[in-house]
């Protein structure tokens, strides 16, 4: 059983200062004005003191309805002493006594959301799976891994952690299972500033994740805590309102107008919150490096910063650099790398998110926005999922484009047909040997889909990349087909490198056809199409049951046989069956025929007496004959399409039993064939 026992890797107590990961990783050693800008933004200094850092706004969580979502006891303790309850939090220490915290809590109890909080409780959960989600979906790039989870290469050593993890409160004291699930299903709703981004997970995964984080081991959630109902006391709430207004909570949190906070102009670049020992004002417990950085920033805060600086600081503020490297900085450290899983066949590129160096030049702004908006993903093999940051990234695509702009040498006009040839394996360089194309798996390792190449990539960068892939992506398995700018294919377009690359781009952009060399495709990927012989498939089927045996005939007339009650159950025509769910879906849903229903037999409760199904045999034409015993007399039953009709033949030992119960389906015309007699009866079913 896995519980969230955090690794005691970097004790929080030793680092009481608030955590801004980007600062701790990249600036702590040499705190510059840029570092101070990052902190001024991330600590919310700018929210109180005004100004413009140029970075995405850092806000506090939504407080309306907070007492419905979080435990009052926890809230009170946190309000009273944030850094003790959650070491490393960016929420400053504001109050000096518990009574004030209690009053603030009661005031918050009066701040209600527009729509009341009514979370849905899940029926089933699996904390163990939740641990897998937590440790593989990307949560542990920011948060501390649990010690019970074994990543493939083993639990990393403490020394491999280069910086602290973003703290989690004691979640069992803070949330109910439903409220944590609700939060995790879209963190941006309650924390719109994107510092806790939204990871796209299936609904069940979110429940499992919450169950893991709260250590709920019963699969029905029977031991999950609930939020105790909170009733705000009027007198206390009034007192709390005054405290909230005087402490200027509304500078960071969205609160009613009655407690609005106006900016406090900065008169000096020292003292106040920056002081080492202060009380009565927000107290941040800043480290020396943090203080130094903030002072450096304040001294020069009117100075303009370049788009490059702004881009760098934005990526650090949102902790994009936890996963992505840019210009040699960032990406997961050795410890956190251990938790990235994916497709080992793709080497490091199959495990780790791509670098963002030159991202604004590489990717089209539309693609960046689609990725940030959760609409597009290029690397399905990465187990970590790119999260959404909400409005914090609204301007990021434009910012990256500005920061990474470069004088591009235009490519010549491409030849679409030549591009198609080049990408295929029939005389081309064979991109599809490794790369997928839309729904087509590649012929080998499953590198990313190239059908979206032109939607994603800008031509100038593409040219540079193709000539020397390793220079742009460390650890890529992608070879250069144009080493030193010389094409390895001297046949197509006379071996002209620029023309070839332009043609690949043009073919992808045209969006028509696919590269040559994929194997012939069947009509539906998992549709069963009887061609030269019947296809038999067992499944769960509606109106047939859990012992359904489907028989699809090349003539386009198909039946389902109920192997529990030994009776035919359904006839349909046209398409036979889509086997995807039966073959590959764990939930094993009850299926339906793919074609058009012709007729059904009535309910099996009317089935014949004492029937034992005995299986089936295939004849030389691979047509099944079903076998069953009716009151110990063996009956054989065979179906076969004939001239657009269905023929059904039953044979048995007439000496043992003169007659057996035979029922016919509704909606067909039943004709008994000539020569039919006891022990051998043949019926023809026809329909309009």
């Amino acid at each position, binding site marked *: 059983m896995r519980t969230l026992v955090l690794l005691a890797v970097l004790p929080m107590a030793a680092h009481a200062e608030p955590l801004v990961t980007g600062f701790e990783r990249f600036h702590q050693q040499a705190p510059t004005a840029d570092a101070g800008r990052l902190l001024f933004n991330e600590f919310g200094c700018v929210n109180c003191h005004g100004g413009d850092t140029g970075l995405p706004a850092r806000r506090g969580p939504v407080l309306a309805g907070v007492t419905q979502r979080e435990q009052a006891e926890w809230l009170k303790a946190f309000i009273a002493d944030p850094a003790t309850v959650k070491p490393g939090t960016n929420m400053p220490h504001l109050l000096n006594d518990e009574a004030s915290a209690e009053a603030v809590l009661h005031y918050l109890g009066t701040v209600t959301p527009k729509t009341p909080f009514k979370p849905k409780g899940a029926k089933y959960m699996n904390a163990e799976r939740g641990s897998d989600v937590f440790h593989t979906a990307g949560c542990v790039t920011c948060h501390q891994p649990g010690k019970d989870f074994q990543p493939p290469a083993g639990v990393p050593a403490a020394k491999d952690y280069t910086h602290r993890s973003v703290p989690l409160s004691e979640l069992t004291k803070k949330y109910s299972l439903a409220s944590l699930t609700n939060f995790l299903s879209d963190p941006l709703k309650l924390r719109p500033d994107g510092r806790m981004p939204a990871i796209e997970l299936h609904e069940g995964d979110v429940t499992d994740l919450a169950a893991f984080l709260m250590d709920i081991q019963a699969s029905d959630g029977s031991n999950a805590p609930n939020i105790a109902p909170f009733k705000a006391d009027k007198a206390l709430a009034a007192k709390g309102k005054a405290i909230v207004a005087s402490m200027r909570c509304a500078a960071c949190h969205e609160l009613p107008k009655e407690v609005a906070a106006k900016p406090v102009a900065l008169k000096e670049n020292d003292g106040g919150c920056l002081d080492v020992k202060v009380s009565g004002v927000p107290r941040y417990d800043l480290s020396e490096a943090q203080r130094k950085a903030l002072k450096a920033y304040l001294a020069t805060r009117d100075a303009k910063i370049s788009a490059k600086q702004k881009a760098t600081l934005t990526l650090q503020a949102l902790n994009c650099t936890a996963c992505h490297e840019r210009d040699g900085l960032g990406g997961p450290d050795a410890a956190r790398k251990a938790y990235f899983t994916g497709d080992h066949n793709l080497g490091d590129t199959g495990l780790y998110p791509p670098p963002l160096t030159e991202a604004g030049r590489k990717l089209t702004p539309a693609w960046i926005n689609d990725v940030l908006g959760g609409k597009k993903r290029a690397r399905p093999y990465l187990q970590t999922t790119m999260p959404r940051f909400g409005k914090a990234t609204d301007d990021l695509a434009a910012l990256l484009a500005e920061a990474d702009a470069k004088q591009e040498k235009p490519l010549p006009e491409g030849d679409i047909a030549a591009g198609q040839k080049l990408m295929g394996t029939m005389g081309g360089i064979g991109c599809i040997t490794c790369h997928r194309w839309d729904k087509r798996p590649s012929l080998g390792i499953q590198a990313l889909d190239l059908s979206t190449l032109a939607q994603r990539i800008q031509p100038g960068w593409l040219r540079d990349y193709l000539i020397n892939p390793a220079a742009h992506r460390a650890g890529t398995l992608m070879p250069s087909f144009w080493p030193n700018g010389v094409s390895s294919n001297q046949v197509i377009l006379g071996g002209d490198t620029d023309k070839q690359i332009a043609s690949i781009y043009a073919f992808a952009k045209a969006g028509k056809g696919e590269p040559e060399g994929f194997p012939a495709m069947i009509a539906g990927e998992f549709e069963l199409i009887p061609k030269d012989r019947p296809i038999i498939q067992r499944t769960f089927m509606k109106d047939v049951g859990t012992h359904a045996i489907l028989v699809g005939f090349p003539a386009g007339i198909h039946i389902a046989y109920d192997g529990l009650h030994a009776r035919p159950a359904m006839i349909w025509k046209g398409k036979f069956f889509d086997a995807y769910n039966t*073959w590959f879906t764990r939930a094993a849903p009850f299926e339906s025929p793919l074609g058009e229903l012709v007729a059904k037999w009535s309910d099996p409760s009317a089935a014949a007496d004492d029937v034992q199904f005995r299986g089936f045999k295939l004849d030389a034409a691979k047509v099944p004959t079903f076998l069953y015993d009716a009151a110990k007399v063996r009956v054989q039953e065979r179906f076969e399409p004939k001239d657009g009709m269905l023929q059904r033949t039953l044979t048995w030992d007439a000496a043992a039993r003169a007659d057996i119960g035979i029922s016919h389906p509704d909606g067909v015309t039943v004709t008994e064939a000539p020569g039919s007699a006891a022990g051998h009866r043949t019926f023809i079913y026809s329909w309009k």
Partner: protein
Amino acid sequence: MKTTLLLASLVAVRVLAADAAYTITDLLTASTTTASRSADWKPGQGITLEVSGMDWLADGKLAVCTRKGDVWIISNPHAAKAADVGYKLFASGLHEPLGLQVEGDSLLVVQRSEMTRLRDTDGDGEADEYLTDSRGWNVSGAYHGYAYGPKRDGKGNDWMTLNVDMGDHANNKIGWRGWAVIKGADGSIIPMCAGFRSPCGLGANREGDMFCVDQQGTWVPATPVFHLRKGIFTLNPEGLDSQNRPESPLKLAGPVPNKVPYPEAIKTVPQMVPPAVWLPYNKAGRSGTDIALCVAGGKFGPFDGQLMIAEFTDAKINRVFLEKVDGEYQGAAFPFIGGFASGIVRLSFSKEGDLFVGMTSRGWSSLGTRAYGLQRVHWNGKTEFAIKEMRAQSDGFTLVFTEPVDAATAGNVASYAMSSYTYLYSSAYGSDEIDGQTLKITAAEVSADKLSVRLKVDGLRALYVHELHADGVTTANGAKLAHANAFYTLNKIPKKP
């Protein structure tokens, strides 16, 4: 097939540094990764070899059934190159078969709904008879209603095991869900014992007694290996309603207790028997899936007669040594070989002494990153320094090693550490280790042949898992143990000789 070969050539042989005594070779591994519960998972190119059952034909070919519902006959399974292995489709359209056994000219497979006898009567290499051989359990349509087997015991009984249902359509009130059954006369089943949750693997030991491995979850605190017998109850009461049917061989006097330490729980229910071994969670796997008796005649290292326990989540194999104390099996689990490509579901030794490892991890998480496949483990003839056996004594344990030990380190009590613990028996999903104690090792006496060490230990507790760490023990050359930990399930403390 081309694709399969291309992929296979990329990852043909893995020699694991940590397990250098063994080589793992790919016969076929999926080009797709696992994607737990993904709604649009797809198999890779080539054969979707999600191995769910394996057995050997008389001519040395390997018969494999797959979750998708096919049966493949694999020729030349010991070929050095994956390209030289042949695959021939024998049967298809089955409903998630999860076990296969060769019987004469037939293959027996257990599908969701029945045990089916497959035969090729016209000699074209394809089955033309799909005859119902045995059925009688309820099939509700719940996804978790898996059925496993058959496996034959020493008396000729064909055993099957049935999961409890979960999810939509689940119905554990009827039809022997959570039971082990054997095939009866004229296509029926005979219920034998109850109390299982997800008893995914069956296997007989050298004496012909049948064992099954269940999986941690509700009521099952950690992976247990049970010796199956008529009339016993193991752990999970969720399928106990069937005991009210006249065919039931057992009837508990009342409900099982909830949230009590396991050693107490077992005393309140007379039919309840302890597992022969527990495989502690994380330390010796997380989801046991199969049992294979090592019958390699020394070609798989010195482990003949021991049980190999397949492990799904960790994609590895643990090793189990059993002994009889007071007439009942108990013994020790040892970590063994890891690093397989996918979640292991089936294990089978070939006549040549290689261990074939069948895998599919669709639907659940595994450290193996491939979605499915078949690999082969070959012993390189180099004996790994390991604890071969751990035997209980009235006042401690005897450890038997695969190689002579260094008398100084092995005779030093400081080379060892031991703790004991049990589990909470409850409806919750799994259990922490509870009631733990550190035990004092008072003596470590090395035998004259230096192959065994007699440990004297204070404070043995019956029904507790006794976890040993022998990190300090080396060979004369200073080599350390490949795996220094062992887990002995001390159901009974032997009487003083």
